[in-house]
C-alpha cells in the first residue's frame, strides 16, 4: 500500500500553463490539509525502509546479537547467487503476470455487465464485491480445503475431466499448487479490478458511443475504438495497482503450501528469513530487493506506459 501511495504523490500535479491566484491558494490549502498525513506517511514508511537497508549490510541473527557484524554486500551476494531466490522471483513473476491478465479480461467482462445491466444494478455490484470483502487468509483456507482430496469437493465435481480423479493431490506438485493459488487470487481480486474498470467505463462520454452506433460501428468496433482508448487511464491504473499488489503475494501461499514444492514467492522467502529464521540481515537484504523490484514496476508503468495517476482520480 505504502508504495502505491508514494507513487501517487510522486506523480506531478495536473500541469497548467498559467496558475490563477485562486488555484494557487487552493493548492496551498490542499498541501496544508494533507501535511499531517504526509508527515506521518513519511515517518512510518521512511523509517522502516532506511532501517531495513541499514540492517541488510550486517550479518545479524536475533538469537545471536553478540555476533552482529558488518558484511557489506555479502547478504545481497548470497541472495542473488542462490537458486532459491531466482525460483521465487520466477514464481512471483508468473503469478503476477498470469493473474493480472486473467483478472483484466474477467474484470472487463464483469465491468461491462455491471455497466450495461439496469434492473438489479446495486444488488449485482454488491454481490460482485463479496469475494473482495473476504479476508485473504479466510479465502485461502476455503480454497485449500475445497481442493484437498480428503476434505474437498473439487475432485468429486470435476472427476469427469481428464487427469482429475478423486485422489488428485493438487498441493503435491508445483504447477498444480500454483494453479490453485492463482485461482484463489483471481477469485479474490477480480472484483477490485472490475470496480476500477467500471469507474473508467462510467467516464466515457456516451455521445461518442452513440455517434459510433449511428455510423454503423459493430459492438467490437465500438469496444475497440471508442471504449478502450477512452478508458486507457483507468485500465492502466487498475493494472498498475493489481501488479504491485500481486507481486507481493503472500497469504494464499502461506496457507496452502507454505512454500513447499517450489511455490514460495519473494514475500514468503523474505518472511522465512526474517520472521522464522530471525536472520535479520539476510531478510532485510531480500526485503530491499523486493522493494526495488516493486519500485521498478511502478517506474516502468508511470514512465514507460505514461500512466497518469492523477487522471484516474477525477
Amino acid at each position, binding site marked *: 500500500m505504502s508504495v502505491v501511495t508514494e507513487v501517487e504523490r510522486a506523480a506531478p500535479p495536473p500541469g497548467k500553463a498559467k496558475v490563477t491566484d485562486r488555484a494557487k491558494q487552493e493548492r496551498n490549502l490542499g498541501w*496544508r490539509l494533507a*501535511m*499531517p498525513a504526509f*508527515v*506521518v506517511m513519511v515517518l512510518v514508511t521512511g523509517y522502516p525502509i532506511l532501517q531495513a537497508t541499514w540492517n541488510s549490510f550486517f*550479518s545479524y541473527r*536475533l*538469537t*545471536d*546479537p553478540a555476533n552482529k557484524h558488518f558484511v557489506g554486500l*555479502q547478504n545481497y551476494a*548470497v*541472495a542473488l547467487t*542462490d537458486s*532459491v*531466490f531466482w525460483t521465487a522471483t520466477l514464481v512471483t513473476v508468473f503469478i503476477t503476470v498470469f493473474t493480472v491478465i486473467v483478472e483484466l479480461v474477467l474484470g472487463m467482462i464483469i465491468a461491462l455487465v455491471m455497466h450495461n445491466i439496469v434492473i438489479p444494478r446495486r444488488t449485482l455490484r454488491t454481490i460482485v464485491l463479496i469475494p473482495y470483502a473476504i479476508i485473504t487468509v479466510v479465502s485461502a483456507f476455503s480454497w485449500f480445503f475445497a481442493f*484437498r*482430496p*480428503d*476434505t474437498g469437493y473439487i475432485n468429486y465435481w470435476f472427476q469427469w475431466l481428464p487427469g482429475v480423479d*478423486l*485422489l*488428485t*493431490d493438487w*498441493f*503435491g*506438485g508445483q504447477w498444480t499448487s500454483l494453479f490453485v493459488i492463482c485461482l484463489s487470487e483471481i477469485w479474490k481480486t477480480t472484483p477490485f479490478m472490475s470496480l476500477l474498470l467500471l469507474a473508467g467505463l462510467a467516464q466515457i462520454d456516451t455521445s461518442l458511443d452513440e455517434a459510433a452506433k449511428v455510423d454503423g460501428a459493430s459492438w467490437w468496433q465500438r469496444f475497440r475504438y471508442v471504449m478502450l482508448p477512452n478508458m486507457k487511464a483507468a485500465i492502466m491504473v487498475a493494472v498498475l495497482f493489481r501488479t504491485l499488489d500481486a507481486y507481493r503475494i503472500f497469504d494464499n501461499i502461506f496457507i496452502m*503450501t*507454505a*512454500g*513447499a*514444492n517450489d511455490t514460495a514467492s519473494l514475500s514468503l*522467502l523474505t518472511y*522465512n*528469513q526474517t*520472521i*522464522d*529464521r*530471525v*536472520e535479520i540481515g*539476510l531478510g532485510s537484504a*531480500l526485503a530491499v530487493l523486493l522493494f526495488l523490484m516493486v519500485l521498478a514496476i511502478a517506474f516502468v508503468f508511470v514512465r514507460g506506459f505514461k500512466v497518469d495517476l492523477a487522471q484516474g482520480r477525477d
Partner: protein
Amino acid sequence: MPRTRQWVRPVVGAAALALTASLGLTACSSGEAEGPVTVTWFINPDGGGSDPSKDGQAGLARICTERANGRYEIEFELLPNSASDQRQQLLRRLAAFDENVDIMSLDPVFVAEFANAGFLKQVPEDYVDDYTTDMVQPIIDSATWQDKLTGAPMWANTQLLWYRKSIAEKAGLDMTKPVTWEQLIDAAKQTEKTIGVQAKRYEGYMVWINALIMGAGGNILLNPGASAQDLQFGLETEAGKAGAEVIADVAKAGVAGPAMSSTDETAALDLFANDTTSGFLVNWPYVWAALPERGIDWVDDIGYTRYPQTIAGEESRPPIGGIVLGVSAATQHESEAWDAIKCIRDEENQKRYMLGTGNPAANKNVYNDPEVKEVFPMAALIRSSLDTGGVRPLTQYYGDVSGVMQRVYSPPNAVNPDTTPVAATELLSDVLNGRALL
C-alpha cells in the same frame, strides 16, 4: 493570523496525541504496584483450552495461584496452535526483552536455541533435584543446555503405532512382536488400507524423519552443541539412507493416503478415523481420546503398540515431544516464577494434567497410578517409549536444521535414498554458514 501558526498547529496536535498515547502505556505497565505480584505464563493450547475450571494449563494456573496464598497470581496467555508459530511469537517477545513474559511452555526443541541466545534463566540449584527426580531421561536431556538445566520438564510426549486389530490380522501381522515399516507397508498394500504419517512440510515431518534415522542407529547431527562451522552431519550414512528409504517406500507404495505431502497429525488421524482407509497410524497419544469423539463405532478394534522399527531387529526410537517450562531472562519475578513452576509440575498436578488433557506426564511415578492406568490402558507402553525415545537434535540452530530437512525431504514422493541425504547435508552446511537462503 500569522502563516506559520496555521501549519504548526497540526504538528503540535500530532505530537500531543503521541505523548498522550505513550503516557497511557506507561500508566498501564506501572499499574501492578498494589496487590499480589502477577506472574504471566505463556501456555500452548491444550485439551483444557483457556478454561480455568478444567484440568489444562489454565486450570493449573488457577490451582497454583490458590496455593500461593496471595504471594503471587498466575495469569496465562494463550500461544498459537502450531509449534512453529509458538516459537515465532516467543522469540519476538524474548528478543525484545518483554518483561511481561515470566513463565513459558516451551516445545523441547526450542530450549537450545533460546538458552544459547541468553533468553532463558538457568534453574536455581535449589530446584534442580525437584525438577529432575523421577522424570524420564529424554525430556531432562531436552531441558538441558551445555550441562545446565534451563527448564523444568512438565509433560513428555511420544508417538505410538495405532492399528486396526482386524486389519493387522487380515494382513497376517503378529502385533505382539515389534513390527517394521516394511511390514506395515506390505500389510497396508495387501489390505488396501493406509498408514497415517506426517509428511507435510512442517515440524511433524521432521519428527518422522528424525525418528526413522535414529531408529536405524543414526543421528542427523553428530555433535549437536557445536557452533555452525564445526557441526558434523550424520545423514550420509547407512542410517541416513535407511531413514530416507522408508519415506520413499511409503510414498511409492501410495499407502499414506491421497495427499501424503499435505498430511499433518489431524489429516493422518482423519485417515485412521475413516473406516474405508483406516489401517495404521503413527501419532501422539491424544488420538486415544480424539477417536471416540469422532463417533467411530469400532473402538474395540483399535490396537496400539510400540513405534515401528526402521531396521528389523533394531529397537525403534519413538519421537519425543512435550513441554518444558522455562523462565524468561527478562522476568521481573524470577523467584515467584520458579516457585510457581514447582507447583505446576509437581506429581499431583502432572497426574491431574494427564487425566485432564491426555498429555502424558514427564514424571515416571504417574504411570504407576491406578487411576491413570485405568484411563490410559497403554500407560506402560507410553512410559517405555518415553524412556527409550529419540530426541530431535539439541542444537541452537534447530529451526534451520529442521527447515532444511523439511525442504529437502519434500515432497515425500521425490525422496531418493541415494541423493536426498547428500543434498540435505550440503544445504545444511550452506544455510548454517550463511551461504544459502532457506
